[in-house]
Every structure is written in C-alpha cells, then in structure tokens.
C-alpha cells in the first residue's frame, strides 16, 4: 500500500511538473530573462496554494506523525544554494524536473540524473561537518 502511494504521488508530481512547463528548458530561459511571467506565476501560485493547504493539514488532528521538521538558517543552505543555483542556471533543471524530463522522452536528462547521483555520492564522501555543515539537513 505504501509502495502504491509513493508511486502514485510520484506519477502525479512528474505529470504536473512536465505539463505545467516547469521541466521545459526554453520556458525556464524565458523566466530567467524576464520575458514571460508564466513560471514566476506558477512558482508563486504553488507556494500560495501549498501554504494554505499545509496550514490546514498541519493544524488538523490528522497531522499526527507527519514529519515536518523545522528548516533553520544554516551555512549549508547558503553554500548549497550557490552550487544548486549554478547548476540550475546552467541546465534549467532541478532534481525533480530532470526525472520529469526523462519521463517525457528527453534522453539527455540521463546525463543530468547521472550527475545528480554522482553529486549525492560525492556528498557522502566529503566530511562536511569539518566546515560546520550538517550531513542530515535533507531529513
């Protein structure tokens, strides 16, 4: 049952990312160059809908057991944001849209995904705690 739920939500999310235009490189360029408001509006609208929805869900009795840890400002967020932002600026892609691109037949996204896996693998090998950065902030 848990497996079915993860698969189902993954399918829905992948479809939403690809059909909304979030996984499209050309649309992303139009956003970065301020030529189109579409993806800005999508991002803002999504945050607004999620803010409303989560405010209800996380305050409801059904919030018991939902893992919603606080995300505090930390050094890793700044350095990580710089690296991720650079990757996003170069490729117009994020971890989610790379998978949606694979799902819509864009074979080159295999290279992006391979890179993302490699980046994760490298992260496991570097002792980031030496720089005062947590290993576990993704949880």
């Amino acid at each position, binding site marked *: 049952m848990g497996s079915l739920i993860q698969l*189902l939500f993954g399918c829905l999310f992948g479809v939403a990312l690809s059909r909304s235009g979030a996984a499209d490189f050309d649309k992303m360029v139009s956003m970065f160059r301020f030529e189109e408001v579409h993806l800005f509006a999508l991002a803002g609208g999504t945050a607004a809908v999620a803010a409303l929805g989560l405010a209800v869900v996380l305050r409801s009795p059904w919030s018991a057991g939902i893992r919603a840890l606080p995300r505090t400002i930390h050094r890793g967020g700044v350095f990580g944001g710089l690296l991720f932002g650079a990757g996003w600026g170069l490729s117009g892609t994020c971890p989610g849209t790379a998978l949606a691109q694979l799902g819509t037949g*864009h074979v080159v996204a295999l290279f992006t995904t391979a890179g993302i896996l490699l980046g994760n693998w490298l992260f496991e090998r570097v002792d980031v705690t030496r720089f005062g950065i947590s290993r576990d902030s993704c949880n």
Partner: protein
Amino acid sequence: MNGEFWPWWWGALAIGGIATAYPLISGRMLGVSSLYASLFERGRPRREPVSEFEAALMAATEAEFGADVMKDTTEDARSKLSRWRLGAEAVRPLFLVGMIVGPALLGLALGDFRWSLTLGKDFDGRYGTFGALPIAVLVVSGILIGFGTRLGGGCTSGHGISGVARGQSGSLVTTAVFWSTALGAAWIFYLFGVR
C-alpha cells in the same frame, strides 16, 4: 509532448495540491532531494522528531516493562495512521520511479510521447545538439545540483515549495540564494550575448 502547457494557475493548484496531499497521506513533506538522500542514507540513523530525552525514557520503559506496555490498546484511528505512515518509509524512493513513469504513461495514453535528443531549441542554441559540450554541461550541472541540494538540505520542491509554504526561515534563505544564483547565471549568459 507538444509545446502546449497548462495555464499557470492550474499548475499551481496541481503542484500545491500534491504538496498538501502527500504529507497528509504519506507523513512526509514533498521534497525530491530528500528522496535522493534516502537512497544513499539507508541504514544510517536520521534526525528523529522525538527528543533524545524522550527516546531515552521510552527505551528505559521498554527495557523495564517489556515491549507490550508501549502498545496503546485503545489505539485510535489517528495513531494507527501515524504508525502506518512511519512504516512506509522504506518505499519512499518509489516516488522517484513514479516521476518518470507517470509522464511517460500519460504521454503514451495521449499519443504525444516523443523521444528527443534535446531539451529545447534554446538548449541546442546555447550548447549544441547532443554533443560533447551539452552532455558535459548536463553532467557538471547534475553534480552541482546533487551536491548543492544535499548541502542545502533541499531543492525547489523541498525548500521552494514545502519549506517556503510553511514559512521556514532556512527554506526562505536557501530558496532566495539558489533562485538569485540561477538568475545571476542567466544574467552572465545574457552579458555574453548567449540565450
């Protein structure tokens, strides 16, 4: 897929709705880089929402009185849901599989699935079609994305949607950093006359 996309508000409802329903049903916030993290972190102890003190108390109680006393015999629907959610942790990476399979199935059903060697006209314009440069750019970008999202503890879904929607300061900061960095990169391309 053809070039027609949903209007922004329909996408916002869909993605925002998923970001709301997924935690409700699975017990975890929506966040793709966390799923990648879970692939690599199997077997390693994670941050638990329960405090160390509480965990020690529970362990001591269980040691003294046995595991049975920990079970609430008047378990109500809520804690059953909570227990079921926590049990589904191990299969979370299937979400990543769904993200690929879902669009593929829909594309096949609608008849608009197409294999493609490019990410778009502008992508080819910038780097060339399916050559050494575009491939190298994607691999390097992937490394930056993979490493950066783990360092930052989230990506556009984890921080940008779930964290920002909850008003989390760390997410707001990290999102602002990666968003402005990406815009900065685009600005550099623009200055060099590259689309």
